[in-house]
């Protein structure tokens, strides 16, 4: 199966956008997941709702809100352009930001469930051995929650690969710049004679998603075996 230059560029762009999105959300995602799982504080429900909002809002609405923020006349975009000459809207960076926002709740949710499932009594035991809170987090909580965190990462990555609505609002559908696989398929289907190209991209999308799931499954199984299951 041969891909055209345009199709290749859509595939590579998708991988780049999804990869950057996942890297960008990983640390804040783990932090939010941990906070929601282990801390009780006023405003916790509000934070929870805010993080999950993109999951229930129409993606187009999220995209529009992003455009209002990071567009050249938006509060953040305007400031960035004025001081650094950085333009985000309608670049691949905007696509990555859209993917980050849309995938974030999936990652946070997975991390939170994974951390909630780790035994706090083990954390207490580690503390009696002389480990401070950060060391307990890094050497006990996160390693034990790793399979879940990994699954959440893959889910967020897959979600990023499929991002459409928010991306088209804030990044547009510019060939070679912001046209990821879903946008390319959309354009192909709108173009007379584009069906074959659309089908090739569909096959690629299925393969990439499938591989991601497979890798995550294998990794988490190895991790579970290494930790000897929960005990």
């Amino acid at each position, binding site marked *: 199966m041969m891909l055209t230059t345009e199709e290749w560029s859509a595939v590579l762009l998708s991988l780049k956008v999804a990869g950057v999105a996942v890297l960008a959300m990983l640390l804040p995602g783990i932090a939010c997941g941990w906070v929601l799982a282990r801390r009780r504080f006023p405003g916790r429900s509000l934070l929870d709702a805010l993080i999950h909002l993109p999951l229930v809002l129409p993606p187009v609405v999220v995209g529009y809100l992003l455009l209002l923020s990071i567009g050249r006349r938006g509060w953040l975009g305007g400031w960035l352009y004025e001081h650094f000459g950085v333009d985000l809207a309608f670049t691949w960076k905007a696509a990555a930001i859209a993917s980050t926002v849309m995938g974030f709740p999936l990652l946070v949710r997975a991390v939170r469930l994974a951390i909630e499932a780790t*035994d706090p009594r083990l954390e207490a*035991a580690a*503390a009696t*051995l*002389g480990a401070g809170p950060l060391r307990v987090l890094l050497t006990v909580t996160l390693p*034990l929650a790793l399979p879940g965190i990994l699954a959440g990462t893959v889910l967020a990555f897959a979600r990023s690969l499929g991002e459409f609505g928010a991306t088209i609002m804030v990044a547009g559908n510019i060939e070679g710049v912001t046209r990821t696989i879903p946008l390319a398929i959309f354009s192909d289907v709108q173009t007379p004679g584009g069906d074959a190209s659309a089908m090739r991209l569909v096959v690629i999308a299925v393969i990439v998603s499938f591989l991601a799931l497979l890798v995550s499954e294998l990794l988490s199984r190895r991790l579970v075996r*290494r*930790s*000897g299951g929960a005990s």
Partner: protein
Amino acid sequence: MIEVDVTLERPGFRLEVAFTTSATTLGIFGPSGAGKSTILAIIAGLIRPERGVVRIDGRTLFDAAEGIDVRVDRRRIGMVFQDLRLLPHLTVAGNLRYGPRARGGDPDDLIGLLELGPLLDRNVADLSGGERQRVAVGRALLLRPDLVLLDEPTASLDGRLRAEILGHLERLRDRTGRPMIQVSHRLGDLLQLTEELLVVDDGRLVGQGRYPDLIQDATVLPTLRRRGVVNRLRGRTTDTAGVVKIPDTAIEFVTPGSDRGPDEAIILEFDPADVALARHRVEGTSIGNQIEGVVTRWTDDGAGVFVEVRLGTDGPTLAAEVGRESLAALGIEVGRPIVCLLKRQAIRVR
């Protein structure tokens, strides 16, 4: 020196204990739900009481009035949890060396003492119950803590394994000299490992002191009695099978026998209710042990009379539980010579 004076309020439970001890090994005894483990958790900093003070060797770990609450990881207290809590994603070596303070010093001695050497590379999930217990003990002691807390270290073990871990703990106590507090609902274990006892019931301290004194305390006795009061004597096996000699005395017990060879340490346990008292030796009887002694004191807690008898002239003491009506019949009084009758089958050897 350990100073604890705390009050903890929880829905349906109130703990209020105050004690000071200079004993190196302290046992906390009481029925389930009495608050024994809670006391350990408060000392370790895992539970914060509403009020009070915790001080170890003059170092204040907690003082509600002063707003002092040293963080768990900075208390330098080693804890062996009842549910062990080995870190499942680490090997035995990883667990032993987890604590930052466990990496200084020379751990070989301790690892050898607990026979952990062959286990170091093993995954903790693959260990047997006794092995896991030894790893948990080693992990806490390797920290060179100011105080070691042991929460029911033998609860999950029975028979041989229990005797084995008790032996390990006894050697550790003698070799490291680390102060220890051990919680158990098994009086026998505490008598083997600790010099002083706290008796706790329903969130309150019922008594504190040496065991023979506590048995003679009518306010403590009812709590002790609920778990079965026990006599416990240290002896050595002799050339004659089943005969155990009490060291530094001429006293010998005839026991059901054991798998041990001559001149080995052995522990005899028997219930006070199995000891009968007589004014004179009894002729023509099936009873295997007739040991002469002197009444040193007795107490009556309403449910029965516990008579303390010193065996021989300077031997150990034992407790005999007799009916109140026997008291007069025997003419029990302090200083009176008396004979303890004990069937050999009533003796458990360990």
